[in-house]
């Protein structure tokens, strides 16, 4: 439980300055603009007037100690959590906060979950097929698939290196392969903004490396927001990093700058956790409310 006093301590001028950069920046280069977003669960404020924005084609890493509100932020962008106040403007105009989840996907927002979320009893190919079909009219659900679509699926499988396993039941894949499959399912939908919640959690070193490269190639063509605890991974692949703490943006910039920010250091140390979190810890499922316990 983090007390009110602690919260006051961490609301420093520095963080306000960082927020300022995002405010009113909804120009045509901004794909996502979160404005004064507040969410609370059972009276505990998880996001506190949060301001945050991202540009087209940008790959952003989101870090912060436990209970900082990272997953809640992603939840609210994807419609899973409804905010108490504030707006989330996407792609030049749409307010996301009152939309149903599946509509947000149709707008072009894809989300990867912490634990791989795939269809275990369908084949890898069929997994992508289901993901691809989301824009179809209901009537076309009853037909077979077209060759153009088949090509798309194969191309995506190539991208996530699962071509060989196309006809295997997805439930039999390794953990890392499942994560890639899930990423593949997002890619095949060609989203404008991709949200990834700890994509390398539970992966081996080699798999992490491969995933990082995959992320970079994805990030070159679209906007990607990655929540990650693995600092080594962040250091290796991040360009811009946003630090979230107690429901506010604490610091923003490249990894170097952020790491040197005294507020950030204090936030991590003050919370009793080191910057180098272990993989095991970061793969623990967490909900915003857990911070209250």
């Amino acid at each position, binding site marked *: 439980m983090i007390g009110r006093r602690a919260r006051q301590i961490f609301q420093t001028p520095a963080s306000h300055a960082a927020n300022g950069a995002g405010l009113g920046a909804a120009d045509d280069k901004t794909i996502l603009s979160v404005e004064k977003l507040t969410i609370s*669960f*059972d009276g505990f404020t998880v996001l506190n007037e949060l301001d945050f924005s991202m540009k087209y084609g940008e790959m952003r890493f989101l870090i912060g100690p436990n209970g900082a509100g990272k997953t809640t932020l992603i939840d609210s962008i994807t419609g899973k959590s409804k905010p108490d106040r504030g707006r989330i403007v996407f792609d030049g105009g749409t307010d996301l906060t009152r939309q149903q989840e599946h509509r947000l996907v149709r707008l072009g927002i894809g989300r990867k979950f912490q634990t791989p979320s795939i269809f275990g009893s369908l084949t890898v190919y069929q997994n992508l097929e289901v993901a691809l079909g989301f824009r179809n009219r209901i009537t076309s659900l009853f037909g077979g698939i077209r060759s153009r679509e088949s090509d798309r699926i194969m191309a995506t499988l190539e991208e996530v290196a699962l071509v060989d396993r196309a006809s295997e039941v997805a439930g039999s894949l390794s953990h890392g392969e499942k994560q890639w499959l899930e990423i593949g399912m997002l890619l095949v939908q060609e989203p404008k903004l991709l949200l990834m919640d700890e994509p390398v959690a539970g992966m081996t070193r080699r798999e992490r490396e491969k995933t990082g490269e995959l992320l970079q190639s994805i990030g070159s063509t679209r906007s990607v927001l990655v929540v990650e605890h693995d600092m080594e991974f962040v250091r290796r692949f991040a360009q811009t990093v946003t630090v979230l703490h107690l429901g506010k943006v604490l610091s923003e910039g490249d990894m170097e700058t952020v790491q040197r920010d005294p507020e950030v250091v204090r936030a991590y140390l003050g919370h009793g956790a080191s910057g180098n979190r272990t993989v095991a810890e970061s793969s623990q*499922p967490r*909900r915003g*409310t*857990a911070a209250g316990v």
Partner: protein
Amino acid sequence: MEVWASQLFNGLSLSSILLLTALGLALSFGLMNVINLAHGEFIMIGAYTTYALQQVAAHYTGDPQSGITFLIAIPVSFIMAAAAGYLVEVSVIRFLYRRPLDTLLATWGVGLFLQQLARSIFGAPNVQVVAPAWLSGTVSVTSGLLLPMKRIFIIGLVLACLGALYLYMYRSNEGRRMRGVMQNREMASSLGVSTRRVDSFTFALGSGLAGVAGCALTLIGPIGPSLGTFYIVDAFIVVILGGLGQIPGTIMAALIIGMLNTVFEFGTTAVVGKVLVFAMVILFLQWKPAGLMRARGR
């Protein structure tokens, strides 16, 4: 006004019966996520235990109305039903954890089996349990407001069960282990708690409470092989409305359903009253799918 006062009491009394039948379910369904459709048959076991005990006692003492026999029947019913529950858990349920819908089908089979067993042992017709003399009669509050002793006794019994359950769950080591397993199975297991043992115990406890309910129900209702079927659905509705795993929620739900049912039934008919209550519960779940009491988030 006496009509309303007596209706209030009727509502309370119905609530106490609902709670008594639902309490065991709140454990097995609420805490273990086992849909035990044989719960009604454990109630039946309690009722027949009371009957059998009374027959035996009457045979030796010649006095079927002995109040002592009935008092002894309460713990004996608990033990018999708990033993049956333990057997069922060990032989069937334990293979089905994590498959709640399958527990539903299997326990349905168990229920059929137990009903037929009762029919084979005690015969198909209803049997009778003679209520002890001290439970007959009424307590008169005013001249027009008479409260049946049996109803008061059942309300007291429910309170006693709740008290005992509270003490068990929060004051005993066994109960602490149980709560631990229910909240985080893996963690409890890694701390050396035998989750197998706790599962069997919890299920037996839930069945035992059904047995107590069966014993009490002999006072006011029929005692036959299909006795359980009269109570099981209402009990499930109470647990669902209360919210899974929430004993306080179950208590609240029993009170609400009992009161509403009584009011509706008084205002309309028994049939319409029942339908209205179910419809309201479904509508309520639209609004709050988790029931009255939400389990804490993880």
